[in-house]
Structures are given as structure tokens and as C-alpha cells.
């Protein structure tokens, strides 16, 4: 049985070749697309379990493609790019990517990132709460449903996992590293910018006033803390 179906989107045929050979060797099923447009066309048909998306492509480009994918689904997207500035990483995460890998990369690193992106924390295995309700915010962890301000809110899997981890440790500061490793995987820990982007997005979705958060609080120099039930 395959470990998952991966859509590789890159305009460079050699990169697609290497990825296909390697990923198939690691038991993944691989489909390819040459451009963002091609990718968007094949996603509804193929329903891949993960997308590896090149940032710099002719046509609509990686970021736009990523936003378009996010418009219709929450499958994990890993952006691959030759640029390694923080600004580019943040732009990719803001566009809805789950992760960002700088080219050139070693295949081990990429495989680890793919595993992390495909990994879903099992619903209640960590002994966290099954649900949470306080004021304007209601979360049902089993059904993966969130209501804020009387409206249903759609969270991406990573946003949901982040929220669950914070709620499970409500009242206690959680460090950047701990959060990164819990949500992304054990190979992570030095990507505070990931948290900045995802926490911002979470706040926009569940906080009445994201600039003055009530639930997800920043612990300066440490990390974040979930303040529930006051």
C-alpha cells in the first residue's frame, strides 16, 4: 500500500524526475504537473494527499497556486523555493502553505517534512480535552469543528492541531520549540516565523479583536499561552 499520493509541481523536468524516482522509492505514489494551472486542474481529479509546490514557475506562480488550492481544500502544501529569506517564507506560509523547504535540499530533509505534513495527531490520543467552550468560542475536537462569534470557522489541519495543543495546555506557557515539535514534528524547532504566521491566522479566525487577543496570548521571549474560561 502506498504511503500517500504526492503531486509534484515544478517547471523543471529534471527536478520532477528526481523527485519521482526518489519518492516512488519511498513508497509514495507520484503525479506531476508542470505549472500551477496544470496542478489546479489535476487536483480535483487525483485528490493527492500532499502537494510539493515550486514557488518560482512561469504562469501563475507558486504563491498564487497555493492560495487557489487553499480556496478549495486543506490538503498539506509544501512550498519549495531557491529563496531563503524570512520574507519569502512568511509570504509562502501566509499564502496557506504548511511548510517551506529551501532548494537545494537533501532528500532526507524533504522526506521528514513530507512525513510531518502528512502526520495527523490522533484525535484524543494525547489525553487532551474533547471539547472546549467559553464565551464566543466553541471547539469540538472530535468533529474538528470550531465556532467563533456565532459562526462556523474553517481551520487548516495545522491551525487546528496548533489550537488543540494550546487548549490542551491551557493556562501554561508553551515554548516555540515545543509547539513546533508537537505540531510539525520532531525535526522542527528553529522556525519561530512559522508560529508567527499561523498564530496570526488563528487569531484572525477565532479572536473578536486579533490585535488584542483574548484566547491566544503571547508570552514574550517564551512562546504562547492559551487563556480559556474566564
Amino acid at each position, binding site marked *: 500500500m502506498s504511503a500517500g499520493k504526492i503531486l509534484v509541481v515544478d517547471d523543471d523536468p529534471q527536478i520532477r524526475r528526481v523527485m519521482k*524516482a526518489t519518492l516512488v522509492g519511498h513508497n509514495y505514489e507520484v503525479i506531476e504537473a508542470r505549472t500551477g494551472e496544470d496542478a489546479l486542474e489535476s487536483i480535483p481529479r487525483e485528490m493527492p494527499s500532499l502537494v510539493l509546490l515550486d514557488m*518560482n514557475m512561469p504562469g501563475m506562480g507558486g504563491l498564487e497556486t497555493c492560495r487557489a488550492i487553499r480556496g478549495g481544500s486543506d490538503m498539506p502544501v509544501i512550498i519549495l523555493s*531557491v529563496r531563503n529569506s524570512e520574507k519569502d517564507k512568511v509570504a509562502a506560509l501566509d499564502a496557506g502553505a504548511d511548510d517551506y523547504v529551501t*532548494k*537545494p*535540499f*537533501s532528500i532526507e530533509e524533504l522526506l521528514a517534512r513530507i512525513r510531518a505534513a502528512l502526520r495527523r495527531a490522533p484525535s484524543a490520543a494525547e489525553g487532551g480535552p474533547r471539547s472546549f467552550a467559553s464565551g464566543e468560542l466553541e471547539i469540538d475536537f472530535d468533529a474538528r469543528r470550531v465556532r467563533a462569534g456565532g459562526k462556523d470557522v474553517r481551520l487548516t489541519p495545522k491551525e487546528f492541531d496548533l489550537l488543540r495543543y494550546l487548549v490542551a495546555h491551557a493556562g501554561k506557557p508553551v515554548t516555540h520549540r515545543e509547539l513546533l515539535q508537537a505540531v510539525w514534528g520532531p525535526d522542527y524547532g528553529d522556525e519561530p516565523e512559522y508560529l508567527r504566521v499561523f498564530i496570526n491566522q488563528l487569531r484572525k479566525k477565532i479572536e473578536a479583536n486579533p490585535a488584542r487577543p483574548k484566547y491566544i496570548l*503571547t508570552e514574550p521571549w517564551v512562546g504562547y499561552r492559551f487563556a480559556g474560561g474566564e
Partner: protein
Amino acid sequence: MRALRFTAAVAVVAAILEIYRILPPEKINNTTVSLSLLLAILGVSAWWGLAEAMVASVAAVLGFNYFFLPPVGTLTIQDPQNLVAFIAFLVTAVTASQLSERARRRTAEAEARRLEIERLYALVQAMMPGGSARKTIREFVNKVVQVFGCDGAAFYYRPTGEILRSGPESRPVSDHDLQAAAEIDDVSIDPGRLLATAPVRLGGRPLGSMALIGGLPSEQTVRAIVNLVAITIEKARALEDASHAEAARQSEVLKSALLDSLAHDIKTPLTSIKAAVTSLLGSAPGTERELLTIINEEADRLNQLAAEVIAMARIEAGKLHLEKRPVAAADLIAGALSECAAPLKGRQVTVKAPKELPSAEADPEFVEQVVKQFIENAVNYSPEGSPIDITAEVKGGKIVIGVVDRGPGIAEHERSRVFDKFFRGQQHRFSTKGTGMGLAIAKGIVEAHGERIWVESEPGQGSAFYFSLPAVTGREAAGGRES
């Protein structure tokens, strides 16, 4: 034409005399006749001018004397009253003609001035500068000849020493005349040669000179023309400069786009190589593993080299985009250390960065590269296993970060050159890997922050590399990291 007017003047006088001679003598007296003649002279002088009026006066006096003054039929004057009448005629003729002459001259002058202003205006409208200063001057000179109806015009453009001429008759003014005219202070008009020359200046700065030949406009107009040409040239030059600046900006944009595509083009094949070789490495047996490791390491080196070349090109093109924010020196050092874990293996690293230091205003991503470069430098140029100290302190209102090694140090004459691109110390010229651009890039980053980078060294004791960063003052210093 003139003769006709003289005849007409005499005819008018004769007509008046004839009318009074026909009328019965009891109906008229001499005063009536003389007043009528006076009116006629006034009219002649006003309409035609002094000479005609004089002729009319003489005719009137002679006729009046002959036909009306006793003894009638002779030209003798018995009564001194008659002499008075004669003088009155002359004085009237002279005064009236002078007055009207003046008025006429004024009108003519006003008309000429109106015409010149009209022409200047036409010139201004024609002179919408476009293209180079040179082209604008050529057009201007042609336009002056055309609008003012001169025989020719010439322009000496001092910045390039060029002389532009228009019209077939522009030869009479020599290059030398023009060059000399540029040095004098005012318009000079030579009516004999029908030549006007004037210096062209803008705000006292000499731009050259201009000459007009034949059909000269007034001095004021010549002055206006040269002022206009000065302004037009200046405008053309400003436009030229602006388009140069625009071209330069576009070439910068192009350069930057080129760098980006270079980065992409080099890294894309490296990505395939790296992915393929690391994939093979996972399952390779002994000897192959060694060879694959070499490919992998060299791919990394090529990647590093490409990154440094691009960084250096960005710095030299002034294309470093800094995103400054308050950042703690301790975080900068920690960030750099986390990336240097492998080279620092087996080294004892001491970090002295007090928590209470004010934050620095810097782009952490770039500054971490500087610290990292210092650390790598310390590792490369000091004996294996020797300790490395990293410090952060406040000195003269600046945050100063330093990395100190226990290596052989740097000779004094080499110290100022270690930040030069591709510079290698004498002893290390053939022994140390790297591109020789690391410290030059570090210097570029620090200088882009408007700060200083330097090295202190005691040969035999070690080297200490430092750079400064602006300190954040006030309360924003703490907790400014995230919201």
C-alpha cells in the same frame, strides 16, 4: 511718395488761400485766414511730419503775405504784426510736427515691440524641449531665424565647445566672435555689420553665446531671446538628466531581476543533483558512499558559492533590502550559533551577552550572517579545539558584537585588507577553503546598516572581529520581538 506729400501740403495751403480769395473781402479778415492756415499746418505736421509742415508753413507765409497782408500783391511786410503771424506759423509747424512725430514714433515702437513680443511668444511655444540639449539648441537657433526673420543666427554651446549655425548668412560671425561674446557681460549690437551678440547665462553660469545677423530685433528682445535659450537649455538638460536617472533605475531593476534569475538558474540544477545524490546516499555501500558524499559536499559548496556571489552582487548593486526591527544581541548570537553547530564541534564557545543590554535596531536575518561569518572565520583561522569567545556590549551608545579567537592573529599590514573581496592572509593563501567573499559580504551588510566593522589583533595571541549596531533607546527595547 515724399514729393507727393510735399505737393499735397502746398496744395492744401493753396486751396485755403484760394477759398479766402474767392470769398468777398468784406466777409473775411486776416485773422480768420491766418487761423485757417494755422489749422492746416497743424494738420499737415500731425499727419505727415515736420518737413511737410515746414514746406506748408513757408507756402502759407508767402501766400498770406502776398495775397492778404498789405501791401497786397507784394512780399514785403510793413506791419510787425505780420512778422508775428509768420513766426507763429513756423513755431506751430515745428512744435506740432515734433509732438506728432514723437507720438508716431511711439506708436511705431509699440507696434515693433508688440511684434517682437508676439515673436518671442511664438518662440516660447515652439520651444517645448524634447530630446537632447544639443538638439534643442539646434531647433532653437532655427526657430529664431524663422520667427524673427533674421538672415542667420549662431550659437556657441560652451559645455561642449560646439558651434551651431543656422541660415546661409551666418558666416559673417566667426567662431572667435562667438567665443569672445560668451565672456563679456552684456548684449553688443554692431549696426554696421548688422550683428548682435550676447552671452547666454543661467544664474551667472556661462552656457555660451548667441549671435543674430541681419534684421536685428531690439536689444531688449535679444536679451529676452538669450534668457529664453538659457532656460530652454536648462530644461532640456534637466529632462536629459531625468531620463538618464530613469534609465539607470531601470538598469538597476534589470540587474536585480537578473540576479534573481541567476540564483534560480544555478540552484535549479543543484537541486536535482543534491536530491539525487542524497537519495542514493541513503542506501549506498561503503566505497560508493564515499564518492557520493563527495558529490553531495561539492554540491553544497557550489550552492554556497552561488549564494555568496549573488549576495556580493546585491551588496555592490546597493540592492540589500533591510527590514530592521529591535532585536536582542543575545538572540542574534544564538541564531548564528545554531547554524554553526557542525563547524563548532569540539570547540569551547563562551558567550557574554548580558540580558539587560538594550536591543539593536537591525535586520536580524542579515546580521546573523555577519556573526556566523565571524564564527566561521574564527574556526577556520585558529587551531582545532581552541576556544572562541563571543561578546556583546554597549560602547559609545552602540551595541558592539565581537568574536575572539586564539589563532595566530593578523599582521598589521594585512588588517585593513581582510574585509576586501578575495583577500587572503599570507599564511593561509593556499590552505583555507571558502570563496574569500565572506568578510566582504559581512562588511557590506554592516555598512548597509550605516555601522562599522573592524578587526583587532595581536599576532601570536589571536584576532577579534567586531561590528557595531545602533542601539534602540527608550522603552520599546524590551518585548519588541513579537506581538
